């Protein structure tokens, strides 16, 4: 019997392996559940607190000193305007940077240095970008405490995330596709435009969704570059005063009185809805491009 397992021995080992298999299944399932439980708790809390104040008047209303009259319209429109500035600026700059680094830049020490710095920038605290925006856009460029300064500051904040995601997406385009394109006599630009970009759009959009979701929820940089806590008009130009949803929510949470946290919860619901709508559009576009090759 040397070299062979007895039936009992075999059964024992099999059970052991199955047991380990089961343990890891439970472990990973638990990890997933913990995240979901907290998400569910958050949603439950926000919904039960905020639903009472959520009404058409709340969505259409401007901020007010009284909880019953307060609304989030100025913040909502301000946030939409901000995203309308952030999305094109950061996408165009970010994707261009990624194309340059992946397709054109020689793989030497300098490009590795740039690469490392961009990845580091993605981890810089948002307040630092706020200070940068204050110095550069508000003072040096003289945009003042305006919508434009806020939007450009946010663009800088999310730019590194978009660059890294876009690079990753471009890198994952199969080499055969590019070589086939070159083989047909296409130039580098034609290859990038007609082969690389269409194939990497799903990946780029996934990164952009994450980046723009961050931009719509950020408070700290906007506080520094001057989003107003109480304003009764919509921004009338790129240089107009503005506010954003997180600023409104922050301002409501920190007020005296028991009703204000409930108003803030209603604001959070609106913020979540806008965020989901925005992501839904991006996911829709992504799915359209998903099976390109």
């Amino acid at each position: 019997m040397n070299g062979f397992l007895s039936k009992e021995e075999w059964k024992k080992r099999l059970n052991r392996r199955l047991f380990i298999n089961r343990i890891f299944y439970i472990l990973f399932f638990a990890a997933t559940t913990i995240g979901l439980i907290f998400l569910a708790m958050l949603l439950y809390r926000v919904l039960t607190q905020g639903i009472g104040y959520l009404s058409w008047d709340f969505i259409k209303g401007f901020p007010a000193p009284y909880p019953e009259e307060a609304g989030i319209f100025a913040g909502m429109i301000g946030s939409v305007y901000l995203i309308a500035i952030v999305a094109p600026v950061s996408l165009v700059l970010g994707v261009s940077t990624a194309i340059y680094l992946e397709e054109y830049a020689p793989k030497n020490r300098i490009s590795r240095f740039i690469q490392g710095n961009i990845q580091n920038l993605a981890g810089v605290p948002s307040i630092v970008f706020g200070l940068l925006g204050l110095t550069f856009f508000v003072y040096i460029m003289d945009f003042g405490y305006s919508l434009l300064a806020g939007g450009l500051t946010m663009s800088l904040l999310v730019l590194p995330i978009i660059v890294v995601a876009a690079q990753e997406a471009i890198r994952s385009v199969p080499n055969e596709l590019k070589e086939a394109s070159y083989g047909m006599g296409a130039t580098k630009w034609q290859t990038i435009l007609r082969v690389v970009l269409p194939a990497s759009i799903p990946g780029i959009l996934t990164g952009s969704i994450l980046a723009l979701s961050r931009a719509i929820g950020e408070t700290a940089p906007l506080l520094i570059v001057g989003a107003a806590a109480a304003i009764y008009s919509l921004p009338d130009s790129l240089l107009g005063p503005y506010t954003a949803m997180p600023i409104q929510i922050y301002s409501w949470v920190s007020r005296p009185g028991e009703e204000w946290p409930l108003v803030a919860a209603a604001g959070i619901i609106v913020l979540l809805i806008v965020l989901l709508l925005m992501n839904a559009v991006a996911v829709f576009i992504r799915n359209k491009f998903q099976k390109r090759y």
Partner: protein
Amino acid sequence: MNSFKRFAFLLASILLIGVLAACGQTEDNQGDADDQTQEQETNADNGSNENNDSKDEDKKLSGTIKLAGSSTVFPIMEAVTYEYHKVQPNVQTPLESVGSGGGFKRSTKGEIDFSNASRPIKDEEIAIAEENGIQLEEIVLAYDGLTVAVSLQNDFVESLTVEQLRDIFLAERGNTKWSDINPDWPNEPIKIYAPGHDSGTFDYFNEVILEEKPMREGEGVTLSEDDNLLVRGIQNDPYAIGFFGYAYYYANQNKLKAVAIDGGNGPVAPNGETIQDGTYSPLSRPLFTYVNVQSLKEKEHVQDFLEFFMNGPAAKAAEQVGYVALPEEKYQEQLANLKKFYE
């Protein structure tokens, strides 16, 4: 391929719009003229009578009044701008809550029209303003009583002398238990809840009680800029003590007990009367806004806004949020002095 082209076209057109808009703004941007430009635009819209100097009541003004500063003054100014917007819907009033110091940083550069503050302007801030050729004029809006509060479950503290407050809050006294302050009180650690060191409220406490000496730190001390957090911390702990603006006590009277303060003439509890007549001493303080004199001279909507809130709304707003309004004649007196700049 086609759908990608469509996508690229969409992206390109979004970018183009962005670029065009960015170019458009450079014209607005010359000088510090965005106020005036907006003013002209809106005036052109509603066929305004900007050149008509007669002060008829239903005249529609437009423009921007920028306000920033103390979070303590914020609720007053928010209520005032809210009411003003009902009267003059075309005047924009962006209001920011950035702290007294943050407000002065901007007003001394002439960036804003009203600088809200929970303390008087400092000499070095006046110096900066003078360097930039800015003149700021002080307006007292209301009084705030800084309230020292304990939990309703606390049954041993009713009043404290200024000296006892120092025993509790000063690091150099080295007291950590209630029994260290008064032998009759429980042998339990004191838990302190105080506003962060950047707030005007802390500045004020620091000046009149601590006399600029360091406050206790570390174990048993919670600092927060969020006053609601202080309220929550104190309400459930019989051995906690903290301080914040009177408005936060006023909004949470059912959860907290205000400690009467003995400034030398017997204990006085904070309420509307004792704060206004100054007997709640030394913890009652005036709340200010500083108006930029140049804006006041040149911008008609700033003059109109000033007259609006000095004639009632400021007093009403102060009462609503739990501060104490000035006597009516004090508002009129200040307004008369300010009118000299433009009449």
